[in-house]
């Protein structure tokens, strides 16, 4: 198996176009598990970890741009926590320190798992995904980018550059349910935001539908919101939990998150 390691974004895009079968790897916390377990044997890997343009984050006119190479450890910084509290809290729930040092936002979007921890908090922050190829650049709403369980709208020659989210959108929180107290894949997760200025409640959940799903309502709908979110879920039974429990937990989480955000 070849490993292609571009040193710049231009080189990365050219390699991506020339080797559409080369699997992009950014961080590798999902992909390396698949390789170790002999579940995947791609012809080649396109190693994006050395592309400086994908790292870090910036802020302009209330829009926060998170590079695809941003790690969960980066996301837990105080500055980002102040702008994107739910996203930062979600990052703290990911794996162990070693995994958080390695795992990236770009990787989470690339895997597009319904359990992806970064996805619900991004969904409640009006998230757009920046995609680029040698043909040019396009932006997609995150809802349109996530098209199914572990499926996204990335074209074979495209790379995920960054996500753009709106910072400082009212109060937010993130919660994740798992059967042990750290290092779990979400049995069900919830990001919730209360935007008093615009009078909007937004909730996005993970692991309770084929894709992470956004639900919004008017601020007046606080009382019915837990039920509304639970009703939007279509959870299944699997080795991590039952569908009935996921729906139940979602109701409890939404009520608690509302309480947390409204009293803050």
């Amino acid at each position, binding site marked *: 198996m070849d490993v292609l390691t571009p040193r710049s974004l231009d080189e990365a895009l050219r390699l991506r176009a020339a080797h559409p079968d080369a699997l992009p790897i950014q961080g590798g916390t999902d992909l390396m*598990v698949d390789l*170790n*377990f*002999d579940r995947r044997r791609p012809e080649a890997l396109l190693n994006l970890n050395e592309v400086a343009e994908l790292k870090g984050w910036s802020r302009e006119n209330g829009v926060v741009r998170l590079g695809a190479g941003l790690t969960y450890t980066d996301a837990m910084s105080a500055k980002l926590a102040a702008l994107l509290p739910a996203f930062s*809290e979600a990052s*703290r*729930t990911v794996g162990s320190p070693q995994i958080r040092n390695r795992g990236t936002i770009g990787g989470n979007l690339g895997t597009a798992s319904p359990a992806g921890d970064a996805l619900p908090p991004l969904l409640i922050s009006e998230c757009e995904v920046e995609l680029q190829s040698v043909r040019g650049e396009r932006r997609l709403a995150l809802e349109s980018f996530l098209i199914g369980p572990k499926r996204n709208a990335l074209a074979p020659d495209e790379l995920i550059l960054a996500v753009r989210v709106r910072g400082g959108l009212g109060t937010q*929180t*993130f*919660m*994740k*349910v*798992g*059967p*042990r*107290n*750290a*290092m*779990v*894949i979400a*049995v069900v997760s919830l990001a919730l935001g209360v935007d008093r200025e615009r009078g909007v409640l937004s909730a996005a959940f993970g692991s309770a539908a084929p894709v992470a799903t956004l639900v919004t309502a008017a601020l007046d709908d606080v009382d019915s919101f837990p039920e509304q979110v639970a009703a939007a879920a279509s959870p299944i039974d699997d*080795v*991590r*939990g*039952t569908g*009935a*429990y996921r729906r*139940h*937990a979602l109701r*409890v*989480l939404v009520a*608690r998150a509302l*309480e*947390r955000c409204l009293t803050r």
Partner: protein
Amino acid sequence: MSRVMPGTEARLGWIGESVRRVDGIPKTTGEFEYASDLQVAGMLWGHTLRSPYAHARVRAIDLSGALSVAGVHAVLTHSDVPGRKTYGLEFQDQPVLAIDRVRYFGEPVAIVAAEHPEQARRAAERIVVDYEPLVPIVDPERATESEPLHPDPESHVSDHYLRDPRPNVLRTMRIIHGDPDARGDVVVEGTYELGSQDQAFLGPESGLAVPDGKGGVDVYVATQWLHVDREQVAPCLGLPEEQVRIHLAGVGGAFGGREDLSIQIHAALLALHTSRPVKMVYNRQESFSGHVHRHPARIRAEHRATRDGRLVCVQMRILLDGGAYASSSTAVTANATSFACGPYAVPNALIETMSVFTNNPPCGAMRGFGAVQTCFAAEAQMDKLAQALEIDPVELRLLNALGTGDTLPTGQRITSSLPVAEVIRRCAALREPDPEELPRAAIRLPGGAGNTTRGEGVKRGVGFAVGFKNIAYSEGFDDSCAARVRLHEDGSAEVHCAAAEVGQGVTNVILQVARTELATDDVRIAPVTTAAVGSSGSASASRMTWMASGAVRDACRAALVEREARGGGEVDVERVYRHRRTAPLDPETGQVGELPAHVAFACAAMKVIAEVDVELGLTRVVWIGTAQDVGKAVNPQAVEGQIEGGTAQGLGLALMEEIQTRDGLITNASFTDYLIPTALDVPPIVSELVEHPEPDAPYGVKGVGEPPTVVSTAAIVAALRDATGRELARVPVRPDDIVGLQ
């Protein structure tokens, strides 16, 4: 210049001193060589093709595709096994490689050796096995009404077992004690269930086989008992035992899961076939099929007591799912039966246990060995009884506590140490922290790093449990341990003992005993191998400290005597230590004859404080206090380590660990989906070491590895019941059970 193992320089210790593990620093820094790190020039890599079915007939195997893969040196099936085609710890019922039938998911069918592990894997994919899938037996309740999985009805029979002609019975055992119809004033009943737990050792099965060029083979492997490996490996290779040498390679945890063979015969076959060294390492997924697990159990219990709280009668029916092959199921059955009632004086009892064959993953030895399952049921029953009688649960246990001079339901009189009342009192006296003394950060609440509560829905519960089990092998097994001591002219000493260091700290024990006996710090331990010393018996059954202490002590003393007699010079002495004899129980009544069935016992009491988010069904154990009967702590720090680790393993069974199957296929064979406790799940553990010397044991020692695991599952679930008011009759307790979704 002293000749000591690396790491021992830091601090030497004699018996009773807390000393640093000799392998502690190398393991922490990554320098320790585990079996998976073994390398030798020119070695090939072995790989195992495993059954994708839980039950199927094997009609044909076509190897041609695999043999044509570049780099492949050998592709072997059952027809290439030169000696006996089957092996096993108690019955030789497990094929080295599947013959005409596979009986469990992951059963080895063929093995490949290639230059590179990837070539071996790709070659294995090209082996074409013509399977005819058969309906798997997955419900142990229905096993005795199904077609026999092992067609020869005589294949699993022993004179010491009750005859039970029904199909798929592994062992039926019965204890009839006193009058099982004796009535009490109060009766409590319950049905309990335990899922299958995995040992989840971090070092997967691995080893290296090296042909010696003279027809024999050296196998370097992570195992628990070198000599019993050799006993099983040699006949399958068609070799005399002298031509097979087993050497201990670095063991990354065992917990019973390395009692059965894994790579030993396969790697040796490939090495002898190719005349090249062959290394095998299972990956994590494969490891879940590479060793036996803890028996899942269903237990029906009825306890009868007088109005003032004295047990009158216990009736229990225990069903253990043994999976596809016998492994050590018959001994686990005996233990579950023997310790079913818990450490209480029970004048009348009827205990009936049956273990059965199914097409589920095979079960065998795991820390606690049958006593974990029954302790969970018996202690839940004691709490129910306390509630029905309105007696404090600790008082009820004290009232019925077994002690020296009392009689077990098997009729065995306890002549040695068993301070049940004392461990209960000392544990109960441990002061648990008040809620305000605990760290209250959100991450320390149920749900932990998931940030699910700031206190909403959280209730606190207290649980208490007591458990006991046997030390060393039982039922007439000739249990021995050899040690060999060489005294050199320069005053230094070398100890040979085949005791497997599986992380429990037996290396330190051996050094401490030898230093104490020889009155010198200058002692080194020789490599652990069948080539230099007799059998040590297994690093199992909480026996290794006792047995190795006895053997090393006797060999040291004999060596000193011999040096004295010779007036100095080099001395080389081997001695074999045996504990007192035991005998099988009567197959009809489960009663002892003249000899006891068990050598000795150890007990532990545990108090648990748990917090439960009753709305989300999430838990956090916040504090554990325990008092354990340890005889004499050779290395108190190591004993505390065993207590903490053993408790954590029981916590795993209580709260999260279960091998899940569908139609016999394992559905969570990874550490992503088979969860074990993290540092956020295991609370601080306060350990009281109760030292009542065991009269029959060297220095008064007892084994310490299993009692914490026996008791902690029961104690933790008791705390959850107290917090939730729910019955919680099944472990691991699921969030659904706590919130009441069924």
